[in-house]
């Protein structure tokens, strides 16, 4: 599958850029030479089946795990030297929601607020934004999965960070919740002037939020480019432009087949 590369002259500057990012666990390669380009102010959809390496890539970007090879820059800064500066401007939500079970939703956000040195009002704003305002006083351990997910999102959004890294943020939400969060994510770059890297294993979901997408399979980036570009590619490959899911599945299938053939050789 051909990769569509961004032309710097026509696009805003890159805020997240990885070069040949690789993560190896003994003989298993979780992320294999991924080069990703996230434009400032965009929503970048990071797409791939389960186990494709999306979360591992995001963990590397947040310094949660060290890359085996390759490098990356976030707003021109690098780990580990600029770790604090990077984390100060990055709100994140990785895998499952993380919270203090003994604290209420509001108290959980207060811990984050104090670390970031934000005003008290930022808590109400974040709770309101994710639709958790009326449950702020409830212990987090008594939240439903969807509420925990919203609390995790509120923690990421606290203080309006200019960069958001969200790993499958709609997991565990009901259809109404998915719709709300999807709309929220889509609106954030305009309202908060931020850049969002959001992962999902569903193209239909990413399609509704993202400006650009990266498709990952078995740790390798199979496609990177704008959604419009993918639509044109779908048309030229004989798929309907309004059914990108088929093209996505075809890309993955083609890659899986190539891997199987390579393994047989």
């Amino acid at each position: 599958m051909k990769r569509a590369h961004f032309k710097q002259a026509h696009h805003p500057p890159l805020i997240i850029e990885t070069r040949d990012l690789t993560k190896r666990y003994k003989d298993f390669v979780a992320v294999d030479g991924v080069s990703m380009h996230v434009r400032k102010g965009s929503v970048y959809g990071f797409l791939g089946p389960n186990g494709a390496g999306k979360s591992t890539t995001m963990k590397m970007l947040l310094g949660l795990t060290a890359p085996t090879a390759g490098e990356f820059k976030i707003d021109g800064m690098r780990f580990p030297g600029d770790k604090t500066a990077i984390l100060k401007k990055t709100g994140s939500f990785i895998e499952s929601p993380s919270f203090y079970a003994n604290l209420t939703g509001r108290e959980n956000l207060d811990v984050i607020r104090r670390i970031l040195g934000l005003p008290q009002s930022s808590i109400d704003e974040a709770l309101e934004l994710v639709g958790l305002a009326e449950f702020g006083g409830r212990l987090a351990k008594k939240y439903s999965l969807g509420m925990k997910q919203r609390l995790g999102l509120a923690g990421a959004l606290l203080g309006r960070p200019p960069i958001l890294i969200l790993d499958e943020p709609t997991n565990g939400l009901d259809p109404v919740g998915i719709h709300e969060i999807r709309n929220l994510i889509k609106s954030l770059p305009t309202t908060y002037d931020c850049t969002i890297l959001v992962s999902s294993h569903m193209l239909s979901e990413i399609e509704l939020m993202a400006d650009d997408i990266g498709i990952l399979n078995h740790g390798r980036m199979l496609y990177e480019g704008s959604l419009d570009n993918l639509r044109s590619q779908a048309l030229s490959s004989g798929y309907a432009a309004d059914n990108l899911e088929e093209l996505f599945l075809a890309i993955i299938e083609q890659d899986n087949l190539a891997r199987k053939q390579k393994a047989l050789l």
Partner: protein
Amino acid sequence: MSAISIELRKERRTGAAIVLPAVGLMGSLYAFANFLVRGETLLSLPLDPMDILLTQLYGMIVVLNMFGAIVATCTVYGLEFRGGAIKKMLVMPLSMAKIYASKLLVLAVGLLLAVAMQNGALALIGSSSLPPSSCDMGQVLVFAGYSLATSMPVLTFMLLVSSRFENMWIPLGMGVAGFLSAVALAGVDLPLTLVHPFVVMLKPAIAMSAQPDIAVLAASAAHTAVFLAAGVWLSGRGHYE
């Protein structure tokens, strides 16, 4: 300062910050109750009254302190692991070493309060129940410092192991095993036993003199320095996988 205030807020509803002061209160009440019941028997022992006061009541007090330290250390890291909160802390612009140091400081202050309460109780008992002019407040103060110093190895060791295991039963089990093995080894007159942090903590309780033992103090200082350095160093290194 803000890291400590954040730490105290995190510990709400867990009791982690009050375990050690509560143990201090229990130890003080035990000392009063014990001396009330057994005071005359204790004072009839062929020992210096100050040695009787400080060493004969310390056995139970040190066991309370040890279990208080085990429970408190397991709780302060258990709360980080329970809802995966540590994962959020790892992506915050706050070093894990700072979080570790804040937890240790909160616990050390708790232990200091416990030791102060217990030795305060001993001082009160001494001034009211010991034969006239035999109560030496200076010696109570020195013993308080000695018991605090010899308790720090267990506190730093337990915090180190609690920070490394997500399953709270592992550090808890190590604490109990440490206590049981220390009970068996504390009476053995071999300098090598001082490599065991729990033995170091029990040493003042099995001694017949309240005078600090320099070898035990040196072992305490070495243990505390090593466990503290290892804890801070490892806390800054653990990547989340």
